C-alpha cells in the first residue's frame, strides 16, 4: 500500500480561549479570522498541505459549526481523495461512559479507535490555534532519526513570559536542531528555561496508546503539557525537543491578537504572508464571489492589507480589511482589524478597533483610542452591531454581539463593557 499515508495529523481545534472575548462568542479560537482573508486554522492546515501531510483529523468541541463549515470537505487544502481527507471528530456518546473532551489528551484518547484504524507510523498532534509557518517534515524527520518516543517543537521565548508555557531544558545533542529534553515543567511560576512548547508533538503511536491509557485510569486531568509529557519524562522515555526559529503568533489575549495582525504589516513584515502559501476556503462566506477591490478617486490606503470585495472611498492606514469591507468617503480607519462585510459610514473614525463581521458604523461615529495607540487598549466590537450616527466609543471597550438599539447610547467611555 504505497499510497497509504505514514503520518496521521490530529489538530486540536476545539478550544474557546476566554480572553479573546467576543471574538470567540460564536466560534472556536481556530475559526477566528486573522490576517485579512484567512482563519487561524488555515495556518496549520496550509502548513500540513505544504508539508504533503493530507490525512488530518480535527478535534472540535466548542461551537464547532463555524469550523466545520470552514473546513468543508477539505478540498481547499487538497485534502480530499482516496488517501487524503479531513475528518472532524466531535465528542460523542458511547456504550460505556460518555464525556465531553476533558482536555487535549482526553480528546485524542476518546478517538483512539480512529487512530488505530489508520495505524500511522507517526502521529503528529498539534494545536490549531497558532499563527506560524512550519514544514512539519523536518520535525518528523528528526523524530525518526532520534527514534524518539515523543518530539516536542519548542521556540525560545523571553524569560518573563515563559511562565505562560510549558518550558523545557534541551541538551546540546544536535546543537541548533534540537536535543533530548532533560526537564519539562508546565507553566512554572518561576521559569528557569526559555524553550517553550509550541504544542506540536510527534508521537510513536504505541507509546501514546500506553500513556493515554494510564492517564485515563489514574489521573484527574488530561492535558498533553500538564500530564502526558511529565509522565513520559518520569518514565525516562526518549523525549526530544525540536528547535524552531521562525515566527510564532501566540494569541491568547485581545492585545496579542491585535499585535499578531499588525505583524502582517510594515516595511519588513514579520509575517511574510505572500511567502507562506496560506490557503483558505473560498466557499466560506462565499468570498470567491467578491470582485476585485476598488479604490475611489478620493480614497487612499497605505501600509494595509485588503481583500477582494472591499470598497475604499475614505482613508485606511495600518489596517487589515477582510473581504467586503466598505469605507465611505471621509471615514478614517487606522490601526484596526475589520472582519468581513463591515460598513464604515461617512466621516466615521476608527482607531485601534477589532471589529467582528457585519458591523455598521454610522456616519460621524468615533470609535477607539485617540493618540498613541501602543499605550491604549483595543476596542472590540462583536458581530452584527449597528452603531448609530455620531456614536462615540472609547478605547479598551467591548461591545457584545447583536446588541439591541437601546444599548447603543450616545457615548461609551474608555474600558466599558456593553453586554
Amino acid at each position: 500500500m504505497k499510497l497509504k499515508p505514514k503520518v496521521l495529523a490530529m489538530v486540536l481545534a476545539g478550544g474557546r480561549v476566554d480572553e479573546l472575548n467576543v471574538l470567540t462568542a460564536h466560534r472556536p479560537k481556530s475559526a477566528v479570522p486573522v490576517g485579512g482573508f484567512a482563519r487561524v486554522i488555515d495556518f496549520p492546515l496550509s502548513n500540513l498541505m505544504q508539508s504533503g501531510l493530507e490525512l488530518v483529523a480535527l478535534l472540535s468541541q466548542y461551537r464547532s459549526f463555524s469550523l466545520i463549515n470552514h473546513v468543508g470537505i477539505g478540498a481547499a487544502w487538497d485534502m480530499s481523495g482516496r488517501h487524503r481527507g479531513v475528518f472532524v471528530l466531535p465528542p460523542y456518546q458511547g456504550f460505556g461512559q460518555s464525556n465531553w473532551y476533558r482536555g487535549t489528551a482526553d480528546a485524542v484518547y476518546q478517538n483512539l479507535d480512529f487512530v488505530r484504524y489508520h495505524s500511522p507510523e507517526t502521529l503528529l498532534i498539534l494545536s490549531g490555534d497558532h499563527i506560524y509557518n512550519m514544514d512539519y517534515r523536518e520535525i518528523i524527520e528528526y523524530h525518526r532519526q532520534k527514534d524518539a518516543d515523543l518530539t516536542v517543537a519548542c521556540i525560545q521565548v523571553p524569560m518573563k513570559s515563559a511562565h505562560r508555557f510549558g518550558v523545557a531544558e534541551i541538551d546540546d545533542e544536535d546543537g541548533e536542531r534540537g536535543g533530548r529534553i532533560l526537564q519539562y515543567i508546565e507553566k512554572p511560576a518561576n521559569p528557569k528555561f526559555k524553550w517553550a512548547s509550541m504544542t506540536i508533538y510527534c508521537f510513536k503511536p504505541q507509546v501514546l496508546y500506553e500513556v493515554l491509557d494510564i492517564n485515563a485510569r489514574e489521573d484527574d486531568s488530561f492535558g498533553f503539557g500538564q500530564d502526558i509529557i511529565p509522565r513520559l519524562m518520569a518514565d525516562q522515555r526518549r523525549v526530544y525537543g525540536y528547535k524552531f526559529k521562525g515566527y510564532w503568533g501566540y494569541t491568547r489575549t485581545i492585545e496579542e491578537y491585535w499585535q499578531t495582525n499588525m505583524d502582517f504589516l510594515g516595511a519588513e513584515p514579520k509575517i511574510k504572508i505572500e511567502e507562506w502559501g496560506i490557503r483558505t476556503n473560498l466557499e466560506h462566506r462565499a468570498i470567491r464571489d467578491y470582485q476585485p477591490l476598488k479604490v475611489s478617486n478620493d480614497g487612499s490606503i497605505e501600509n494595509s492589507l485588503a481583500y477582494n470585495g472591499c470598497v475604499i472611498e475614505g482613508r485606511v492606514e495600518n489596517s487589515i480589511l477582510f473581504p467586503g469591507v466598505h469605507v465611505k468617503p471621509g471615514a478614517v480607519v487606522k490601526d484596526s482589524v475589520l472582519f468581513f462585510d463591515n460598513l464604515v459610514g461617512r466621516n466615521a473614525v476608527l482607531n485601534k478597533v477589532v471589529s467582528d463581521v457585519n458591523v455598521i458604523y454610522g456616519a460621524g461615529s468615533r470609535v477607539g483610542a485617540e493618540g498613541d495607540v501602543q499605550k491604549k487598549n483595543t476596542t472590540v466590537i462583536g458581530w452584527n452591531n449597528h452603531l448609530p450616527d455620531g456614536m462615540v466609543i472609547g478605547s479598551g471597550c467591548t461591545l457584545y454581539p447583536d446588541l439591541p438599539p437601546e444599548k447603543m447610547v450616545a457615548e461609551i467611555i474608555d474600558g466599558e463593557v456593553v453586554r
Partner: protein
Amino acid sequence: MRNLDNPLVLLLAGGVGSRLNLLVQTRAKPAVPFAGFYRIIDFSLSNVMNAGFPHVGVLTQYKPLSLMRHLGTGDAWDLSGRIRGVKILPPRTGAKDSDWYKGTADAVRQNIDFIQAHPSREIVILSGDHIYRMDLEDMLRHHRRKEADVTIGMMVVPKSEIHQFGAGITNDEGRIIEWEEKPKVPRTNLASMGIYVFDTEYLLKILTENREESDFGMHLLPKAIERDNVFAYPFHGYWRDVGTIQAYWEANMDVIRPDSDISPQAWGIRPNPYAESLAADRCSARFKSGSSVHNSMISAGCVIEGEVVNSVLSPGVRVGKNVLVKDSVILHDCVLEEGARVDLAILDKRVRVGKGAVVGTGKDKKIANKEHPKHLYTGISLLGKEVVIPAGAVIGRNCIISPYRKPEDFSSLNIASGETI
C-alpha cells in the same frame, strides 16, 4: 424525469476574435481575462446560472485549452449535479458532418445529436463574447408569451455603429418584419445581440432544410423573418462586444468609472477561482507605506508600493517603488520594477517591466501601429504574455511587443510609436 420546461443552452465560444490581436494568440476570445480575475465567458455563463437553466453545451473550436481549463466541471456556476452540467462540444469527425465548424448555424447543426440527447422545448443560443447582464428567464417568458418560433435579444445602438450588427425593423407588437445583416446604410438603430431563443422543433427544421447555410445572422434568420414568427426581446442596459483592443480597454475602464453601471459582483457574475489557482492561492492585496491608488480596481495577491491611477490590476501584480501605472489593464502576475512607468497599455500575464523602463510615451497617440493599424490607433500599447522589457527601455504609443520577447530581442532600447517587435 427531465423537466422540459428548462431550455437547453448552447454557448458559442469558438470564434477567433482576431481583432483582439495577441490577447487571443494563446487563448480563445471568451477566455480572455477581464476586470481583474473574470474571463469574458463568465458573464454569459453567470447569466445562465442566474436564470437557473441547468444544461449548457459550449461549442469550442479555436484554442480551446484555457477555456476548457476555466470551465472545469462547471461547479463555479452551479452547473454540476444530477441534472445539471456543462459539456464541451468541439468539432469532431464522424460518419457524416465531419468538418470544422463553418459558422454559427453550422456549429449548432453539427451538434444536433447533443440537442436530441437533451430534450427541451426551447434552445437558448448565446455568444460567449459579451460583457452584460441579462435576465434570460424573462426573455424565455417573453418568447413563450409571443408564441414565437425565434426570439432575438435586441438593443438600441447609435446609428453610426449599426454596420457592425444584424439590424431588425419591428412592428407594433415587437415582431421583426425586416432584417439587414451589417447594413452599410442604417434604416434602424435596433441591433441584434446574438442572443436567440429558438423553439427546438423549429430550429431542427430550419437547420436541416438547407445544409449549406452556415450562419444564423446571414442565412437562417432573414429567411425565418420572412416566413415565420420572429420577435425581438428588447434589452436595456450595459452590453458590450469586447471584440477589439479598443473595446476591451474601454470596457475595463467602464468598470472603474466613478459612475460606473457595471459591477460583476452586483450582477452576480462568478469567476472560477479554482482554475489555474486563479484566486485560491492569493492572499490579501498589500498596500505599502508611500503607495497611492486612485480610481482603480486591485485584485487579491497584488503588492503595491508605487502609484496606480485609473487602472485594473489582475491578481498577483507587483508595482514597485516609484512606479506609475496609469489608464492601463495589467493581467496576472506582472512585475513592474522600481521607477517603471506604464501609461495607456494592456499587459498580458507575467510581463516584467525592467527598472526605469517606460511603456507608452509620446504626445501623438494617433500614430497607428504599422502592422495592425486597425487594431491599435488610439495610443494603447500591447505587451504579450511573459514579455520582459529591458531596464531603461522607452516604448512609444500603439506599439506591440509579441509574447515571450526577452531583452535580447530588443535591438534598441527605444521603440518608436507604431512599431512592433
